């Protein structure tokens, strides 16, 4: 009996999913062939409010500029990553009016939505040549980095050169990190540390710092060991913005955080009290061993429930170029996937950052997520 119900339910769900798909995927593919003017025309001809869900607060500014430029009514919403995923599915499943376009992080969860047709990829012809093949499908809009940043005031400045310093007794309570349970990209970063490559590099770094080979004991590999000891020393915050503000206060002397570099743009952050670790002028790179932090892509896609698909595609095209990227590009810590857009003065390019930051590998994250997240929960509790 319940098998029958389950079968019926799956059938209904798949059918409803398919029926909403057919129009939009083909439509997006067709639209790849349009010229810019044709796209603008079609976008303007569409009706209703253009709705965008974004993981980033600057999406509303970009949207405002876009709407002013093309005389379109738009509504931007800044939501948490997990919320966007939940919302999108429910809206598309129940055919409710929802987002036309999304800007979203967490590549591993994205897989599911793309596989099942909830999100459709669009590569604007105007930037196709300047975007790395690896970043084209799904389309990466920008990369964001979270790096080790410390308060440079007081006597005991934690200017670390090796991440294993953060696991020492004296660092207890001095390390700030956004709770990985409320930020998927943080959890993904921890998952990545357990793969072969990073576990090996962590083992090497251990030897370099403590002078003796690593003894794993009960831990599966060096990644797990570092995660456990790092998290035990951490104090968890609920928002990168608050973390940045708090760690920049004079009272936060001696503390170090792992958070988004671009939060330094906020006016309530006292940037003079902060230093990004650890800059090597000779190499023109940040050189904490074996990594200075991590980075993750922010993707831009069309929703299959879009009532204004052409506007969505036009907006993606806008965002990938100079004007659309400006809300992010004017501050440090935002790197467009469009290589024609240069990074901000004083910041490094993404190609340099890529060498010292941990990146997401969706396939590995999908496979290892369960194990690592259960492990992490014990240390975050």
């Amino acid at each position, binding site marked *: 009996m319940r098998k029958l119900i389950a079968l019926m339910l799956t059938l209904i769900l798949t059918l409803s999913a398919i029926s909403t798909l057919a129009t939009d995927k083909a439509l997006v593919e067709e639209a790849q062939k349009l010229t810019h003017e044709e796209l603008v025309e079609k976008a303007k001809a569409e009706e209703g409010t253009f709705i965008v869900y974004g993981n980033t607060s600057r999406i509303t500014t970009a949207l405002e500029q876009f709407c002013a430029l093309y005389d379109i009514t738009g509504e931007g919403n800044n939501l948490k990553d997990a919320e966007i*995923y939940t919302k999108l599915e429910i809206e598309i499943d129940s055919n409710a009016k929802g987002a036309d376009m999304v800007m979203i992080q967490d590549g591993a*969860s994205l897989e599911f939505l793309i596989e099942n047709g909830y999100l459709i990829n669009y590569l604007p012809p105007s930037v196709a040549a300047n975007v790395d093949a690896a970043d084209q499908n799904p389309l990466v809009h920008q990369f964001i980095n979270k790096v080790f940043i410390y308060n440079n005031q007081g006597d005991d400045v934690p200017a670390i050169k090796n991440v294993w310093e953060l696991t020492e007794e004296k660092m207890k309570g001095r390390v700030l990190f956004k709770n990985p349970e409320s930020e998927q990209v943080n959890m993904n970063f921890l998952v990545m540390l357990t793969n072969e490559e990073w576990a090996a590099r962590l083992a090497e770094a251990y030897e370099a710092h403590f002078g003796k080979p690593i003894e794993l004991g009960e831990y599966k590999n060096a990644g797990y060991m570092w995660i456990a000891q790092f998290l035990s020393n951490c104090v968890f915050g609920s928002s990168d913005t608050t973390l940045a503000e708090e760690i920049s206060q004079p009272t936060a002397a001696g503390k170090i955080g792992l958070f988004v570099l671009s939060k330094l743009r906020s006016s309530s952050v006292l940037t003079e009290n902060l230093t990004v670790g650890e800059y090597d002028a000779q190499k023109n790179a940040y050189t904490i061993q074996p990594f200075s932090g991590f980075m993750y892509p922010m993707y831009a896609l069309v929703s299959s429930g879009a009532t204004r698909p052409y506007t969505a595609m036009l907006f993606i095209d806008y965002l990938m170029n100079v004007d659309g990227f400006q809300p992010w590009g004017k501050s440090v810590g935002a790197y467009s996937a469009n290589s024609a857009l240069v990074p901000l003065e004083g910041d490094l390019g993404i190609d340099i950052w890529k060498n010292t930051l941990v990146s997401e590998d969706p396939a590995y994250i999908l496979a290892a997520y369960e194990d690592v997240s259960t492990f992490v929960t014990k240390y975050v509790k």
Partner: protein
Amino acid sequence: METIQRNQVKRLGRMTHTFLSKPANLILVVFLVLLTFLTLYPLLVLIFETFTVHSGREARAVGLPRGSYTDYHFKRLLFTLDDGGAMGVTYSNSWIQFYGPLLNTLSVAFTSSAVAILFGGTVAWFITRSNLKYKKFISGVFVFPYIMPSWTLALFWQSFFKNEFIGTGTSNGILASVFGIFMPEWFVYGYFPISIVLGLHYAPFAYILIGGILRNMDANLEEAATVLKTSRMRLLRRITLPIIKPAALSTFLLVFASSISAYSVPVFLGSPVRYYMLSTKMKSLMDTYPGQAYIIAAVMIMFGIVILGINQKVTGSRKSYTTVTGKSSQVSLVDLRKWNRPVAVFLVILMLLIAVLPLITFAAESVIIKAGNYSLSNMTLDFWIGTNLTYLDQGDSTGILLSGKVWKALFYSLALAATCAVVAGTCGMLVGYAVAKKRGTRMANAVNSLAFFPYLMPSLAFGAIYLAMSVRVSWLNGFVLLALIGSVKYLPFASRSGLNAMLQLSGEIEEAGQIVGIPWWKRMTRIIFPIQKSSLLSGYLLPLVSCMRELSLFVLLVPTSNTLLTTMLMQYSEKGWAQFGSAINLLIIIVVLLINYLVNKLTGASIDKGIGG
């Protein structure tokens, strides 16, 4: 044969017709069907969801496709006690995700109920049975903590007491930076403040319910004891306390149920130190493993059912409520003598701290530029009326009073609150009328229980169920969904005040109208409603005020967090946009207090009558 059958059918038809021609019966039948659908059907959906595989991360973890049947959620949440390894059972998945939060929830609920009754009941006694000074001020301000959103006190507590040695430990709140006093972590976050804040928030409940009994208590009882030279302590113990026992127990149960489902207070005062309760765990699980979140919702609802049952047993046997007749009752007040001034002053200061200081704190937080610095040079009105604030790179580019987004949210919130108030209030009045008229019949009891049930369903769980329902019913989204859930959620209050109002009316009043042949609707609008106007209107006021300050009910259902003022506030707080957040918080509180004041002045309706004092 045929004639007999036809006659039977005709008789049945006539009986039904007679039955339904009485308005009270018709109302009962309609609401029985409606409420069953709106409360029991969602429950079925909930239970169904606890056995279903949802998408994304959950599907990967279970290893089955979306929509399949599974008992994985139960196993994982309730029976995974052995994966803590060397660290012990408190590190097992089930403990972290369920049993630990369950323990925390129960301890907080017990403590906050105790706090509410002790504080509210004591003040109620002072106000109703003693000659305390400044009564008007104290009783007027006492309901503030209930009118203000529950997180007001929580946010105030956090921003007042936080300091660099606890939590993320980098900035100082007002007490630390202005007075140099650093409170320990257990005082500022976790079990202690959550219990205190919830207790204070629900103390008005106790005050109103217990105060109501004390107010109407016949003074002859106490005077008889005094004549026999009973000491005051004995009088209190042997006469006063037993009389208020049913009300106290009822209050305890209500506050207990409310504390179990509290969400915003634990989020602000518990989550920063990872002190989780069932409600906060449910919210975080909803985005990752919904199946387990639904199980927690079901557990919370079960608590509600049990408490409802106990409450019915305790209060169901009250006999007569008629008070609108003509007898006057004497009340003799206890003379406090030398204790009068100290107690009165103490209470006044306490009320100022609880009701007024938070408002001042929020005002201060909304005008400072850099956190922790409360000097005048660091203050600006930009967050209220500034323009061109893109340099801030936060939330909005204009101050909140000039922001289109904020005004839109304000009007949407007001419209939603008004709709819920009208629907819930009217239905509540009708239900109250019908149940009062048919008091004692099975149908009346059924409708009465069903109408009260939504109150005991935790708002967050309720929201989760309606979310699941909204996927199945296509027209159920947006404003309609929010208005529906709001109306159902606040129906209990409206029906309670409606019931109390109707029970107070002696039956002769309506019968007089019936004898003269006045139709039902005219009897309602021209006789009954005007007499009990202030009690009945309180049934409209409570949903109105509650809806304006409601968060957890709507947080899962709003199209975007900018839809309602309260969800906007939550988003701003989570993002750390402290100034905008505090400004919006202050705006919400002012609007709510204003509405309460206006309705009170214009119609005489008030929160006290609404809760049933």
